[in-house]
């Protein structure tokens, strides 16, 4: 089977202002839409996931789907991509009523989706994954060279620096995301669905992606784009469809709608502001890291301080060592040189158990892989780090009633929804899973909280709650470190910030100096020098 490809060349194309105007013209002229969804309803036994959804995608349009976690965005795009079938309603593709029975059929029409959940085979190479199911063959024998060549072509066009022959299992999350995107580009496209594609890309890769999106737009491809980031909506969005609780709310023009308006539409209530104002009151030193290096080379000679009553931000690119720094302090990486002092005690090389006992809590970035036992219920997950607390167990035996009360009170405090702590974590939405993860650190007496990417894949409503939660911890006198790829988080929450670059500490910024410009300058500076 020979794969057809949309031929696009990389070149500098001005931001698609023209394209936007064209769309307005197109809409005005009543041009045939690429895709039209009419009254789409999807029911599961006992629950209505989607109700009377309307969506029109014009050729050359970037249509943003906007809504909280669990609003039905993912269900909607999976019906468009042929993964699920609507219970009621009609899908018109280029004006023709269409029933999409499978992903394969959708692909055949040129509808490709890049989902949040990766569907890669770790044991295969990059090229093998890109062409999985559409391999080039010579009389039934795989043509590896041809596949690798074509994969290279696609990756070059996308500007992703990946080697087609490398195995997927040795690559990181950002690279996985790139491969997923590359997969969608292997055949002729008429509609491209991107579900939070930039969640784990660096700014440079994100810009590349946007350039590509603009090129596709010029070619008349319709793009459905899901994101929680306001800046992206402003940058590439043409129209925005807002969903709430599985219902269609409205469709607005991206240019004409403000951030506040969108938030109000999305949540159905007025959110004054996303970031709280934190009252910092820096006191004694809690954590001192001196000249720390790790055996795997992810950190080189790094020194930082963290005080009580302040929030310290750690910024940097993927692989800059921003996460590794605190993970080594928590005993997850082997330290080769330097030392870690916690409350005046030398704790270099101590493991998680010892660090927890001393009041150091590390909240991992990846809920599924490191944070929660997904098949166990909320109660067990919440109390797991603190079962050795005196009031939760006597000798080897658990006091299960006390445990229940503790878990329940924390779940109530964090407004878990639905409020059922005996339910398995995997059945909750992303934002609520994050709340369970956060509840874990409230079960112990903690002096230093470390939050590694605390709001990945979390909607703005829950995000605000999480920020308030973190602010409250700081104001109560605890030391907080936020490790984040989301710059606004660092800018608005921290009173000091460190920028990491290739395993080294690049810059320390104070209060008013923490601006996007200052942070970004230190992300890239040396690369520009080279």
């Amino acid at each position, binding site marked *: 089977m020979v794969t057809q490809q949309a031929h696009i060349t990389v070149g500098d194309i001005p931001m698609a202002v023209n394209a936007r105007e064209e769309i307005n013209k197109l809409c005005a002229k009543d041009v045939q839409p690429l895709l039209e969804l009419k009254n789409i309803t999807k029911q599961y036994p006992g629950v209505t996931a989607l109700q009377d959804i309307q969506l029109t995608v014009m050729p050359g349009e970037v249509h943003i789907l906007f809504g909280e976690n669990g609003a039905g965005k993912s269900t909607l795009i999976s019906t468009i991509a042929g993964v699920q079938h609507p219970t009621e309603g009609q899908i018109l593709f280029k004006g023709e009523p269409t029933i999409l029975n499978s992903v394969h059929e959708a692909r055949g029409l040129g509808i490709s989706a890049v989902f949040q959940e990766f569907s890669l085979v770790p044991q295969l190479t990059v090229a093998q994954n890109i062409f999985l199911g559409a391999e080039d063959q010579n009389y039934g024998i795989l043509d590896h060279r041809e596949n690798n060549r074509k994969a290279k072509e696609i990756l070059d066009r996308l500007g992703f620096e990946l080697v087609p022959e490398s195995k997927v299992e040795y690559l990181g999350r950002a690279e996985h995301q790139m491969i997923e995107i590359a997969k969608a580009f292997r055949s002729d496209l008429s509609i491209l669905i991107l579900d939070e594609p930039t969640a784990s890309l660096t700014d440079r890769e994100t810009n590349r992606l946007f350039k590509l999106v603009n090129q596709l737009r010029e070619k008349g491809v319709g793009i459905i784009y899901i994101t929680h980031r306001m800046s992206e909506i402003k940058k590439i969005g043409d129209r925005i469809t807002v969903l709430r609780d599985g219902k269609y709310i409205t469709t607005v023009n991206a240019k004409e709608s403000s951030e506040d308006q969108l938030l109000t539409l999305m949540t159905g209530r007025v959110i004054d502001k996303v970031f709280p104002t934190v009252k910092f009151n820096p006191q004694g030193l809690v954590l001192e890291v001196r000249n720390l290096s790790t055996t795997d080379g992810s950190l080189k000679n790094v020194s930082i301080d963290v005080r009580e009553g302040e929030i310290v931000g750690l910024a940097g690119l993927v692989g800059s060592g921003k996460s590794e720094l605190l993970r080594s302090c928590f005993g997850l990486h082997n330290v080769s040189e330097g030392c870690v002092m916690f409350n005046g005690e030398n704790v270099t090389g101590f493991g998680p158990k010892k660090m927890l006992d001393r009041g150091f809590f590390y909240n*991992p970035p990846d809920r599924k892989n490191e944070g929660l*036992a997904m098949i166990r219920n909320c109660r067990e997950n919440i109390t797991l*780090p603190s079962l050795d607390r005196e009031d939760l167990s006597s000798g080897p035996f658990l006091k299960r009633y006390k445990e229940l009360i503790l878990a329940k009170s924390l779940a109530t405090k964090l407004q878990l929804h639905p409020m059922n702590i005996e339910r398995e974590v995997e059945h909750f939405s992303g934002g609520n899973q994050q709340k369970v993860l956060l509840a874990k650190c409230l079960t112990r007496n903690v002096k230093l909280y470390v939050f590694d990417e605390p709001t990945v894949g979390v909607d703005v409503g829950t995000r605000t709650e999480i920020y308030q939660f973190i602010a409250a911890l700081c104001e109560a006198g605890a030391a907080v470190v936020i490790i984040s790829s989301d710059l606004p988080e660092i800018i608005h929450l921290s009173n000091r910030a460190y920028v990491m670059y290739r395993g080294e500490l690049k810059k320390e910024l104070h209060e008013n100096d923490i601006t996007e410009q200052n942070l970004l300058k230190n992300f890239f500076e040396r690369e520009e020098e080279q």
Partner: protein
Amino acid sequence: MNSITKTQQETRKIFYWFKVTFVRLGVLPFLLVLAIAIFTFLSDNFLTGRNMMNVLRQSSYLMLVAMGQMFALLTGGFDLSVGTIVAITSVVGATVMASIYSVYPESVMLAISIGIIAGVAAGITIGFVNGLGVSIFNVNPFMMTLGMSSVGFGIALYMTGGTPVYGMPAEFSDIFGFGQLLSIPSPIWVCFLSIIVLTILANWTRTGRYFYAVGGNLKAAQLSGINTRKVLMFAYVISGAAAAVCGILLTARLDTGEANIGSNFPLESIAACVIAGVSLRGGAGRIENVVLGALFISLITNGMNLARIESYLQTVVIGSLLIIAVIADQVRLKVMANLQD
């Protein structure tokens, strides 16, 4: 018209109730009831007090091994060496008991207790080595326990030269093999005690909770300050200990130390666990269901014997039932997901 909708509503209600019980209890109780009904129909001797006691006694050996197996499965591993543990416990226990008895013929109880301790210690040692390999050296549990099963079997054969070990005091067999208390056979008592101890361990202790956490997400357990190596190690020690207790009881029943017993246990114990809904990926499983699973397998075997079903065909039936049970459990998970939404 009205009455039709009423009956419809009622059937819907019954159907819903059925779904909820199915989700709550799993497929096992239904299979058990079905099996009892079929075998009662096929054989008059099946549903008698004597035969039921017989089934219970026979199943207590498998129950013990399967409960131990559950802990290995909970952590996301396996224990394929349970058969060997039964064998080596039998051989070591019998040899030690017989030699002490031959030197001090009058101290019967001393010989019995030291023999039991030696046998159980040998079994636990194998479990300990399994745990060491899995937790410290990161050997895949499948390979580790398979390897140890070969090692242990070899040692048992080497010790005995392949012949049964005789010469244990008659009291040993009288008490632990054929003894009764309140007209209930002693293996059932031992098994009953083990069920209580292991249920408490799994549900009411910190260590028990840690088994589920480690199997549910090893990384998360580590970050929550749990010594995952210790937990993994302990799982295999429990599995070894449970199999060792079974080995002692079987030795008493046979009145000889045998290197050749227990070869069916690895498969049957895993089967009992899986029928009982223990996840092969770790993190989910309940003792009381595993007990029912082991009972189910023994019940089927006993019923087919009474119904004079040929032994070759019996293995076909058991294999098929195992697969059907697993499919039914998958259906259950789907129904459960639907009900929860």
